[in-house]
């Protein structure tokens, strides 16, 4: 399997809603497609 390359210039996103969505996805909802897309939309809305 190919290793995904990561962008080293990324930093922490200081937005509690975004971080909560990711925490929720981590807590037992790992395969939740909705949470992951929700996080992406939240990031997009932050501009």
């Amino acid at each position: 399997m190919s290793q995904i390359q990561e962008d080293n210039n990324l930093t922490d996103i200081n937005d509690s809603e975004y971080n909560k969505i990711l925490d929720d996805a981590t807590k037992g909802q790992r395969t939740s497609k909705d949470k992951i897309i929700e996080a992406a939309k939240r990031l997009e809305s932050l501009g």
Partner: protein
Amino acid sequence: MDKTKISSQIRRDLKLRGWEDDELVYVSRILGEEGYTDPRFARKRLQDVTLESLTSGVKDLLKPLDDKRFNELHDSTNDTMPILAEHDLNYDQITKLSQAERQQYRDIRAKLFSEQKATISHGQTNFEDKMETLGLKSDEVSNKKSTIIPPKGLWGVSDTYYYIKGVAERFDTIGKYLQDVAKQVYVFKLSKEIDENALKLLNSYHDKRMLPLWEVALTGSEEIINILENIQDEKNRDTALGWMKKGYDKHWNYGNHGAGEVDYIQTGEYIFRLGKDKNIILRVPIKREFTREQVGDKTTVRLLDKGNQIHIHCPGHTDLTCLSCGGKYFLVNTPDGNNKRWDGYCGLDFNKPIVGDEERDLFAGELFYKASNILLENDLSKAVEEICDNVIFVEHKSASDWYKEKYKQDLITPIIHEEKPEKIKTQNIDLQDRSMIGYNIFWGRSHRTADKSEHFSNEA
């Protein structure tokens, strides 16, 4: 945020939360379908990741082959050996093969077994990782290290995390710049003249600018280091204030071993036990004692050489009287012949080192008293205490489930009483009684293993 970076950002943040690479591939695929794709990584990311590629590979190499099918394959003019090698041929079938065919059968089959082994081993590693992420450990691992860190699935960011990280980064930046400049100064070695000028300017900057501004800050950073360093100490992990408390107990109350027993370590393990009254179930935390060496090492202060001595000088009050004449005036004969009148000083003049444990302990006790009072008022120390008080609990089973499992009866409304910690040896804990596990920065940590600690405790 740039749409092409969103997928990378989310994967990074999920990785920080403990997600594994194969799970991140899944995230990447979902976001790719939604149009959140970084074109730089798009092709690499999506290639060859199919369900088949993840699940194929394990074949049943122990299945037998019936004689009819064996004869068909054996008599075939095609190369059927790869198919035959996937079957566990019986003795009669193997003897029907030629010597060369037997060798080929052996070699292909050995290779297939080797591949299977690698696939299964890889699968097992994947499986163990996934289970650990969910907080599920094998009995062996659970017994060996009951509380180290919580499962990755429970990790998470918080405002305090961002704050501490932010402060650390600011200090780190100054340090990094200084290191960079130092490296450049080393690589491009300075001439003697420039070296002198530069050092003079730096010293001047230090005296005129840094000292007034930073004097307080430098004192402050000493304080910060003193408060934070204990958390980094893998061997003796407790807060500065925690060790102060142990210092009290050692010096004033219980001694090294006693203080180790009183200021115990929580293992994080909790067990259920039946209470005396109906419907009462006790939940008992398991503790271990600190070792007396840990208490001794951490709560004793080594005095500096300069202070570790006492200056003894003749007090000069020795009065002598002649028995024959009652006279009080004497001459002291000195080697150089300059005899002088006895002035009451005997010449005693030396530094006596302080070596007694008693003095040393008194001194250390005094320090603890003062220092702990300072720490009690210090907000950073208070913040560290708060952080270290945090416990994450994961329940193994409910009280009702435990009762049903153990006594084969239902207990409709159990009342749980939280008990004081008890010291119970690992071998005396029934796995069935395990109630829950608590994860804390310091719990379960000990220089010795719990079992060794019990051994020494029993010998004491």
